């Protein structure tokens, strides 16, 4: 059973539907007792970093999820990936979950002339072999929608994409995985990753 953490941000419908289409059982919940019983956790997220962290804390989930991430496979998606990091500079400086080393910076400052948000399908370049991508191939297209990106995370980097600047696409640290893109919106390529995540031991 996969727990999809529901802390009041974003559209969890697509993610739950993707898992269902793969024949995977999942539960959308904010209940710690239920999350504890699940064998893996997905932290989704859409919106702004400070607001999402405040909601996570407000729901009493912040420290709990940090502890969960040490015990079982844990996947952060989009803003959920960004929240895995030490801190973000979106609307001032906000501390994250500190599960992955690095920080979240604006794309706007990274290069001139970029259209922001980075929105659409971009191709992946794998910087490291990772079991999350065991069914994917180099150059697979996935769907991105974001205005901030992760930096200073060389040691955990598993995939990047080219948007005039090199953008962190995926990271991994121990059992903790993160994707800046949306696997649940990335067609067949994304479904393969969710399947691979369900098989991580």
């Amino acid at each position: 059973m996969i727990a999809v953490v529901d802390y009041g941000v974003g559209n969890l419908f697509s993610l739950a539907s993707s898992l269902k289409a793969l024949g995977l059982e999942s539960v959308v919940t904010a209940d710690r007792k239920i999350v504890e019983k699940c064998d893996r956790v997905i932290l989704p997220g859409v919106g702004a970093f400070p607001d999402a962290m405040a909601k996570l804390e407000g729901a009493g989930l912040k420290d709990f999820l940090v502890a969960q991430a040490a015990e079982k496979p844990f996947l952060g998606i989009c803003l959920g990936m960004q929240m895995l990091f030490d801190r973000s500079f979106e609307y001032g400086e906000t501390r994250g979950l500190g599960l992955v080393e690095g920080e979240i910076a604006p794309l706007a400052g990274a290069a001139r002339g970029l259209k922001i948000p980075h929105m659409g399908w971009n191709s992946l370049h794998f910087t490291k072999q990772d079991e999350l991508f065991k069914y994917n191939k180099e150059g697979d297209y996935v769907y991105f929608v974001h205005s901030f990106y992760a930096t200073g995370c060389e040691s955990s980097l598993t995939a990047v994409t080219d948007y005039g600047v090199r953008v962190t696409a995926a990271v991994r640290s121990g059992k903790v995985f993160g994707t800046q893109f949306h696997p649940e919106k990335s067609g067949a390529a994304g479904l393969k990753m969710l399947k691979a995540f369900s098989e991580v031991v």
Partner: protein
Amino acid sequence: MLAKRIIPCLDVKDGRVVKGTNFTGLRDVEDPVALAERYGACGADELVFYDITASAEGRKLFTDILRRVAERLFIPLTVGGGINSLDDFDAVLKCGADKVSVNSGAVKDPSLIKAAAKKYGDQCVVLSMDVKRVSGRYEVFAKGGRERTGIEAGAWARFGEEHGAGEIVLNSIDTDGVKGGFDIEMLADVTGGLHIPVVASGGAGCIKDFVELFKNTDADAGLGASVFHFGTVGIAELKRELKRNGTEVRL
């Protein structure tokens, strides 16, 4: 490299797709769910569902369908038509939409753009504009292109960007339905200075029109309705042809 997007748009009325389609092997070509799945499988990069129903019952049918589509579609889904308030945003987002397109609703109440962007994020708010040449300038029209607003299109696009729209759809009334190609001139003039993604709409009649669009403008996506529904252009074939012409696409 970011791929250029190809986006079919489905007009839905009372729970059925309005414009005819030419997909073979589909028993019910007016069933939005079957069509959406077919488009997802053949390489569409995103789908737009446009509700052209006026009645409350039709609206309910529409949101039911959205939910069923979102359950089976694993590419981004944009919803438009009759979006006038944050409640309207809320209703379609809850049914699985990823982005919401506002048009006349934003003309009537421009503060809706900022309010929606603040609540749901810039990436969620698409400003769709119907534009027509009127005595030498580009003017925004409302109510499905029937009503003049007096608003200059370039200024409206910039207003949208400044107030949090994450994307602009520019539909040229002048080329819409003519099938003589996208309105390259209007695109350059109205959206040239923007820093957010731009979707070109209106005028696609053949593969060459998309090739010209991406060759001659900075548009991020091309949107089409009947050109896809009637099978004039197959999406897989279109994308192969774009790639052959040096345009980055997802194959």
